[in-house]
């Protein structure tokens, strides 16, 4: 610990240098020009505070006004729909913080204006991830594509799943960390497990909107499974009942019940975070944004003991993490001056200068270079930064069709039933496949499904 502290003091110089770089943002920010006031519609969250502080900094340095309409998360989607569905010119909000699972609906419905249509000079800056190209949209081909699509927005938080694990226990048991494969995780979880006082690993087995399916996806994909045969290619044959998917589900339910909490069916995201902060669980797949609580002594009994890592590899070395990001979008139904103001703010937000300031204010940067620099400059406080930056290279989207939210309840139900042991894993996947195929048929997509698992 003393060693860590001295490293820390050595590196304060580096951080100070970064702060200096950040202050030069003032000079840069003045270049955005004078704009009309804008309103951002967003949800209350652990990352909202730093984001608002950064917007205040933008106001101070540019004189442009940024207002916020802050909502409880469940209200945000409906508020945005109400605003973008109003007639032309009547839109209430200028920047929408759009969650990953709403993006397909918003793109397909044509609610949004491309940033490049507002200001052709805007591009996604070097170092800012395209997040499985979800910042781009090709309205003709109906596909997320950097090549054929237009730049629609700038990520506000590059939130993805990472592995949270108890580094202290790894060291106590003499195990190498971070774990590289799901097998490594299982071995460690077996070593740590001591129910009911401590659980080796926890999964979100709860039926939510979404819990279980969101948590299961990286297991599915790293085992070589998928929901559809080729979603970007337009082949919606259901493959959720493949042998690879079964292997993933077997791993998920086996570790979740044998090495997990005694109530796997009611572990929601909030509960899983709580199990981590109360020192009850050894591993958990959680979003990066949950980090803020881990090192806060008012919220956690495991300060300094938790590390994060890129999600481990499956049997064939595949890696996947699911996007839970927010993109800042500009709606189509607002006046041009407000569009210009919104685009200018978003363009400023992705600059290195703004992002350095953002980290300084306690935010989670969207830039991989900023994350890497902070991770190197203070490897203790920012030990989450590099795993996050690395994770951004292996992202997958939950779904890409606008009706994707109708798939979620199907997956949630059967995964939940599987983890509480109400039905077998084979039955869960077969039933999910049948229901999803029926849904896709009804929605008019080319579909089919694999033969039932035995």
């Amino acid at each position: 610990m003393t060693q860590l502290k001295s490293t820390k003091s050595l590196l304060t110089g580096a951080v100070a240098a970064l702060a200096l770089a950040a202050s030069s943002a003032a000079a840069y920010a003045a270049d955005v020009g004078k704009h009309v006031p804008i309103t951002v519609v967003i949800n209350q969250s652990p990352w909202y505070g730093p984001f608002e502080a950064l917007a205040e900094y933008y106001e101070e340095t540019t004189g442009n006004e940024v207002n916020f309409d802050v909502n409880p998360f469940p209200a945000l989607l409906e508020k945005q729909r109400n605003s973008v569905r109003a007639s032309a010119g009547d839109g209430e909000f200028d920047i929408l913080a759009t969650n990953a699972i709403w993006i397909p609906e918003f793109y397909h419905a044509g609610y949004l204006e491309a940033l490049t249509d507002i200001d052709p000079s805007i591009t996604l800056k070097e170092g800012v991830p395209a997040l499985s190209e979800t910042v781009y949209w090709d309205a003709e081909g109906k596909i997320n594509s950097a090549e054929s699509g237009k730049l629609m927005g700038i990520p506000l938080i590059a939130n993805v799943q990472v592995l949270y694990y108890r580094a202290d226990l790894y060291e106590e048991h003499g195990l190498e960390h971070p774990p590289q494969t799901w097998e490594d995780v299982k071995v460690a979880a077996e070593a740590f497990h001591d129910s009911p006082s401590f659980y080796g690993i926890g999964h979100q087995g709860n039926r939510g909107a979404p819990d279980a399916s969101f948590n299961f996806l990286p297991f599915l994909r790293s085992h070589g499974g998928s929901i559809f045969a080729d979603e970007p290619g337009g082949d919606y044959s259901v493959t959720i009942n493949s042998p690879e998917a079964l292997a993933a589900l077997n791993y998920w339910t086996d570790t979740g019940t044998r090495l997990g909490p005694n109530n796997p069916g009611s572990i929601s995201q909030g509960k899983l975070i709580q199990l981590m902060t109360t020192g009850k669980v050894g591993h958990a797949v959680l979003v990066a944004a949950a980090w803020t609580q881990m090192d806060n002594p008012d919220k956690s009994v495991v300060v300094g003991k938790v590390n994060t890592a890129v999600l481990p590899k499956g049997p064939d070395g595949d890696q996947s993490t699911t996007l839970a990001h927010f993109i800042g979008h500009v709606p189509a139904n607002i006046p041009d001056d407000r569009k210009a103001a919104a685009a200018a703010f978003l363009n400023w937000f992705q600059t290195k200068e703004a992002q350095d300031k953002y980290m300084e204010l306690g935010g989670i940067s969207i830039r991989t270079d900023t994350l890497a620099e902070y991770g190197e400059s203070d490897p203790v406080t920012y030990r989450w930064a590099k795993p996050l930056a690395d994770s951004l290279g292996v992202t997958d989207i939950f779904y890409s069709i606008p009706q994707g939210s109708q798939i979620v309840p199907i997956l949630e139900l059967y995964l939940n039933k599987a983890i509480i042991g109400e039905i077998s894993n084979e039955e869960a996947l077969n039933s999910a496949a049948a229901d999803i195929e029926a849904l896709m048929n009804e929605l008019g997509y080319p579909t089919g499904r694999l033969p039932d698992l035995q």
Partner: protein
Amino acid sequence: MLTIKAQKRLGGFIRHSWLMLSVFAILFPFLWIALSGFKREIDIAMSRISFAPVWSNYEELLFSKSSTYLTNFLNSVIVSFSATVLCVGIATLAAHSLRRHKWPIFAVSAILIFSMIFNMTPAMTLVGAWHSLFVKVGINNTLFALILVNVVLLLPMALWLMMTFMRDVPEELEEAAAIDGCTPAEIFRKIVLPLVVPGMMATSVIVFVFSWNEFQAALTLTTKATQTVPVAIAKFAQEYEVKHGAMAAAATLSTIPAVMLMLVATRYIVSGLTNGAIK
């Protein structure tokens, strides 16, 4: 064989035991909520019974830079009081009209049945239509719009309650007043109103409580400046972090006006209902 006095004592003892048991069952979760307002988040998560009390939740709630609780509280007070007064006033007038002004039976039934249907419709499915209407009229996101919504949401319940209270106003008194040359408005003001004031108070308490906790409409029909207490509280239930401490503090504070109103109104409710109102 027990004496009558002993019987009475035994009865009193049983009643108080049963009531105290209920007090415990009701108070325990309530106190748990109230106590949570003084705990750190980790103490709440681990259900620690012994803990060092902190003020940080109340500080965050009331005095932090981004705090809007006092505004929210004021909004709630304005909305609930205005909605209650309007709603009960309209319901009283209408109940009297429907009872005494010889409307055709089908019209009365239609109004009562529609109000029941409306009461059953989940508020969240109505919000979209209200929102587009308010945008067109230009009162979107205002407290005024929220008051209107609260009034219409609670009108069915107020109407049904006032219909029952109104029945107990003796018709002969009204007829006598009419013969004495009173106008219908005078009859309502001088004869009917004094007799139903206790019933109106009872209805007001129930309407106020429902309006105070109204959540689903306020969630989408308000903005930062017009958000009410339940919406503010919902903001503590964040996606990645539920701030139970701040939530508990906010909830505890928000019960105060309603409790005060209850204490004031209890007398009226009792006498109002003593007149045989809900029958």
